[in-house]
C-alpha cells in the first residue's frame, strides 16, 4: 500500500551544524511532496515543497532533495539553530484522480539541537 516513512526517528545535532532528515515513499504516482515542522503543542507548519519535475529546491536555510529513482526525499537544514528543534514530517500526494486532495504523512523525525 501507499506509505511514507522516515529513516531516523530522532536526530541530535550541534548548534551550527547542518541537519539532514530523510524520508522514503512508496507510491510511484506521488508527484508533490511537502515538508512540515511541528513544534510542541502546535499544528504542522509548512516549510518547503517540491514537485516531481524537480530534484532540488532551496528555501531560506533549507533545501529539499528528491530522488525519484529510489523514492527518497530529504530535508537539509543549514546552520541548525535551537529554534529548529521540532518534529519534522514529510508528506506526499498525487494529482491523480482530480487533484492534490489527500496527503499521506510519515511518522516524523524529532530534531534535537544542542548548544
Amino acid at each position: 500500500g501507499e506509505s511514507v516513512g522516515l529513516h531516523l526517528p530522532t536526530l541530535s545535532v550541534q548548534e551550527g551544524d547542518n541537519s539532514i532528515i530523510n524520508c522514503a515513499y512508496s507510491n510511484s504516482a506521488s508527484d508533490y511532496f511537502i515538508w512540515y515542522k511541528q513544534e510542541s503543542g502546535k499544528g504542522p507548519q509548512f516549510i518547503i515543497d517540491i514537485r516531481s519535475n524537480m530534484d532540488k529546491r532551496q528555501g531560506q536555510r533549507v533545501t529539499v532533495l528528491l530522488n525519484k529513482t529510489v523514492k527518497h526525499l530529504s530535508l537539509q537544514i543549514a546552520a541548525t539553530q535551537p529554534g529548529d528543534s521540532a518534529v519534522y514530517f514529510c508528506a506526499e500526494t498525487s494529482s491523480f484522480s482530480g487533484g492534490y486532495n489527500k496527503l499521506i504523512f510519515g511518522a516524523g523525525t524529532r530534531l534535537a539541537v544542542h548548544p
Partner: protein
Amino acid sequence: EADIYQTPRYLVIGTGKKITLECSQTMGHDKMYWYQQDPGMELHLIHYSYGVNSTEKGDLSSESTVSRIRTEHFPLTLESARPSHTSQYLCASRPPSGGATDTQYFGPGTRLTVL
C-alpha cells in the same frame, strides 16, 4: 502564513458528553480537512470537504461527524465522547489547484482529553 483558527485549544470533558470542535479559515479555501494525531505520531485524515455541502470520510475511521454549511467553517462533532477519543485534532485547508502551492495549511489544533 495561513489564517486558520481552531477552538477550543484544549478541552477536558467527561465521557458521554457531546462536543463540537470549531475550525475556521479566512482565506476562502474550498478544501478543508480534519486530522487526528496522537503525541509524536503521524497525522491521520478523518474527514475532508471539497466545498460547501461536501463532506467525505478520511482514511482513518472516526466516530465523529462534520458539516460544511459555509466555506469558511468546518466544525467536527462527537455525539458521545469516550476516552478513546482522547487525541489532538488538527484542521487544515488548501487553496484551489493551479496556484503557486498545493500545500495544506494547518490550524493550531485542539487537544481533547476525555475522562
